[in-house]
C-alpha cells in the first residue's frame, strides 16, 4: 500500500503524512526516511522543527539523501512501514550527486526504481511530494530541468500509489483512492 501526499510550502503536508502513517502502521515499525542534507543554519532549524513534530510518535529515523532503496538494508526484519520525505530534496540530491549534474531522465529512473523497491518491501509507504509547479516563473535551464523531472517523478508515483492526497492549508483533498 502506498500513499502520495503533495502540497505547497507550509501547507501542513508533513503533519498530515505523519498522521497518515501512524494510523496505518498499527503497531508495525515506522521508519522515517530523511532526505534533507544540512547545508546551513536554516536547514538545521527546518530539520529540528520536523524532529519536534515527529518526537514521541515512535519513528525510527534513517538518513537517506540518495538511493532510497538502500534504507531497506538498515531496517529490521519483519513487517514495517515508512515515511519518505521528500521528493524535492531527493530529486535535488540525486540530480547534483557527486558534484555532477545528472540528466533528469536518469534521476527520475533511479528514484522511481528505488521507490518501487521500497513499496515492494513495506506494508505501507507514505511519500511526501511537493507542488513546485505553480509560481509561473522562468528559471535557468537546470532549474527548469529540475521542475520537469519533479513533474515526471510525481506523475509516475501517482500511478504507483493507491492513494493520492493533496494538502491545502492543512485540509486534505483526495485525488486518488480513499482517504484514511
Amino acid at each position, binding site marked *: 500500500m502506498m500513499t502520495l501526499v503533495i502540497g505547497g510550502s507550509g501547507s501542513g503536508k508533513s503533519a498530515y503524512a505523519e498522521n497518515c502513517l501512524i494510523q496505518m502502521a498499527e503497531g508495525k515499525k515506522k521508519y522515517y526516511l530523511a532526505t534533507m542534507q544540512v547545508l546551513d543554519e536554516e536547514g538545521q532549524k527546518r530539520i529540528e522543527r520536523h524532529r519536534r513534530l515527529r518526537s514521541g510518535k515512535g519513528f525510527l529515523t534513517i538518513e537517506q539523501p540518495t538511493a532510497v532503496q538502500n534504507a531497506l538494508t538498515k531496517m529490521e526484519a519483519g513487517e514495517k512501514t515508512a515515511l519518505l520525505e521528500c521528493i524535492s530534496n531527493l530529486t535535488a540530491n540525486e540530480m547534483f550527486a557527486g558534484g555532477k549534474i545528472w540528466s533528469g531522465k536518469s534521476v527520475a529512473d533511479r528514484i522511481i526504481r528505488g521507490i518501487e523497491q521500497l513499496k515492494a518491501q513495506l506494508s505501507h509507504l507514505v511519500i511526501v511530494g511537493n507542488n513546485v509547479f505553480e509560481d509561473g516563473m522562468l528559471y535557468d535551464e537546470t532549474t527548469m530541468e529540475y521542475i520537469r523531472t519533479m513533474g515526471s517523478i510525481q506523475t509516475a508515483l501517482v500511478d504507483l500509489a493507491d492513494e493520492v492526497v493533496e494538502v491545502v*492549508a492543512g485540509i486534505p483533498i483526495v485525488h486518488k483512492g480513499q482517504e484514511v
Partner: protein
Amino acid sequence: MKLIIGGYAQGKLNYVLKRLSSRSYQVWDGEIPEQPKQMKTDLDTLVIINHFSCWVRKCIEKGGCPEEEIICFLECYPDVVIISDEIGCGIVPMEAFEREYRERTGRLLTELAERAEEVERVICGIGQRIK
C-alpha cells in the same frame, strides 16, 4: 470567519462579492483595520480582507508579528472574510526573506483554515468548498 484561497488572479474577490446578496461590505486591500474595536459600531457591514498574503508580507517587513496580529483582529471581529493567494506552490526562493514569507504565509493559512467555519478554494473563478 470564512477563508478563500487560490492562485493569483483567479477571481477570488469577485467570487465573494457575487455571493453577497444585498449585504453592505467594505474591502480592505492588503491591510487589516488597525482599530478593529471601533468598527463594531456597524456590525451589519461585512469586512472583507483582500490580498491577505500582501498584508503578511508588509507586516513581516515592518518587523511585526502577523500570527499575533491577525488572531487579535479576529477576536475583535470574528465575522470576516479573508481572501488570500496561495503562494507555496513553487520553487524554493533564493532569498531568505522570500522563503520566510512563503513559509509563514503557508502556516498562517493553515491556522486560519483550522479556525474558519468555511474554507473555499477558487480556481479560474470556480469555487470548491474544502471545509
